[in-house]
């Protein structure tokens, strides 16, 4: 089975985010990055499928130079090679644009399975994977928690709301978006890390994908991203101050006398 895993690098969880003065985005140069959580699970899923059924795992990622770190991590964990779209000349938070670029890179590879994380921890639109399926003409299932290989396709467990699940059968090739927690992510071993260097990372520019600047121009899909800002607080929490004993006393008073919850 040839599997392509779409991975994105996002700021480390709990990063202190500072918004740029012009509100165009957050300051990125002071941040540390990691593989988007659900993408990481998607990679692990791909590696396990390969271990069980053979085949090849190819990482696909897009971004500035720094994302090579994520690629190397993926290769160190056992992916066979990587496609890297250098987006130095454009950036987009529009899932439709991103899916267009990713689809152009995936098509010539004719994979059996495309895996993506459920959503990114930065933009969090949760759309890119599903749009990608439509662009590639593949059947898809999102929020997948388990995969079984069948003779002529796959059977997947999809998460529904409130603790409900559903089994779905799909023919291959197909696209799945993977939910965090589907498995346990492995650690990159020293062996894997040292072997990663020898693996192929194919760098692709927009022109290699048959795309031009116009194809990725901001707003070209009708989605007009305007600005980011710190949310106005709808509710002002009363932050209790003092040492632990103090705040505990204050809180207990408030809960008993103001909120009357006990």
């Amino acid at each position: 089975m040839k599997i392509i895993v779409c991975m994105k690098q996002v700021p480390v969880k709990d990063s202190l985010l500072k918004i740029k003065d012009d509100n165009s985005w957050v300051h990125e140069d002071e941040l540390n990055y990691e593989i988007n959580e659900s993408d990481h699970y998607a990679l692990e899923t791909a590696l396990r499928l390969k271990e069980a059924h053979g085949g090849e795992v190819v990482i696909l990622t897009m971004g500035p130079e720094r994302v090579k770190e994520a690629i190397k991590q993926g290769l160190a964990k056992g992916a066979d090679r990587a496609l890297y779209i250098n987006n130095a000349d454009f950036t987009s938070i529009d899932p439709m644009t991103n899916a267009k670029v990713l689809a152009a890179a995936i098509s010539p590879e004719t994979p059996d399975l495309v895996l993506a994380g459920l959503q990114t921890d930065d933009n969090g639109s949760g759309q890119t994977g599903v749009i990608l399926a439509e662009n590639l003409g593949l059947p898809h299932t999102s929020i997948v928690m388990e995969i079984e290989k069948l003779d002529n396709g796959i059977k997947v467990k999809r998460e529904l709301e409130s603790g409900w699940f559903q089994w779905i059968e799909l023919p291959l090739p197909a696209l799945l978006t993977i939910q965090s927690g589907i498995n346990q992510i492995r650690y990159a071993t020293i062996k894997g890390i040292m072997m990663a260097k020898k693996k192929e990372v194919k760098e692709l520019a927009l022109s290699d994908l048959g795309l031009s600047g116009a194809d990725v121009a901001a707003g070209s899909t009708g989605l007009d991203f305007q600005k980011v800002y710190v949310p106005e607080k709808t509710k002002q929490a009363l932050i209790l101050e003092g040492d632990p004993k103090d705040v505990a006393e204050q809180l207990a008073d408030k809960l008993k006398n103001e909120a009357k919850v006990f």
Partner: protein
Amino acid sequence: MSVDILVVAEQRDGALSRSTVEAIVAGQNLGSDLGKSVGLLLLGQNLSDLADEAAAKGVQEVLLADHEKLADYTPDGYSGALQQVIEAENPDYVLFSHTYMVRDYAPKLAAALGKPLVSDCIHYRMEGRAPIFVRQVFQGKIDADFALQGDAPYLVSFQTGAFNADNLKAEGTGAIRATNIDMDRVEVRTKVLEIFEGVKQEVDLSKAERIVSVGRGIKKPENMELVKELAEALEADIAASRPVCDDGWLPLDRQIGSSGQTVAPKLYFAVGISGAIQHIVGMKNSGTIVAVNKDPHAPIFDIADYGIVGDLFEVIPAVVTAVKARK
């Protein structure tokens, strides 16, 4: 007749879901801001009973996409049917509630239509004649504004709870109209097998008066003792955010959030929970919310009534003592 704002309904147990009513409220608000009519689209099979219920929800028109291929939800079936309806009706806006089902097909539909989708919006505001849709990025820490350009229709999904279902204006009765969809043109490639409940919900937290809920900040399963003591002191039930249940430190049926239970107790005491959106949607309607967290920037403080920034391992034992002293 056709409608300007088309709300896509979702049913649960043969009735319209609460989140559908929220989406109608969103449609009504947007309709009144823009001076546009609102319609509701039902998809499924044998929809007549549901159509009557829908007609009473304060919409001008109820459209039906009734077909056996829509009896079970599939992304191909829903996206294919909706594409035909939207192309035929040509509304300005198509609104959804951002459910797990919508997440599964709306992006596909948008791509098929070649139209933009702003997903999981928390509200919108008018700037002149144009609505600006607001969604959260970076897991709820930052808001982002989006406008929509080009030719309509525009697709928008709203987060559960973004609009209050109680604000529905249910005046009048909408006309019911069947749409012409040609489902032979739609190839459904996925096959739905059984639907099942992952964990038997033995605990119904939705009835709980007080909940102590614990998140990643607890660090180790042994530390759960601390939370249990707090719960005992407050006579509260124990719940958790997803990571804690994923790690098996509490059973899955005690998970609060989009993939767990939705609760609204009198007291929600969040211990070491940072407050990712997925968690917040499950508890934000609670009466009094208390948050204890090390990170002063944790989004949980944005919805809390009382916040304590500090080391939970110091704070919680002190709270237990203080609460016991007041009983």
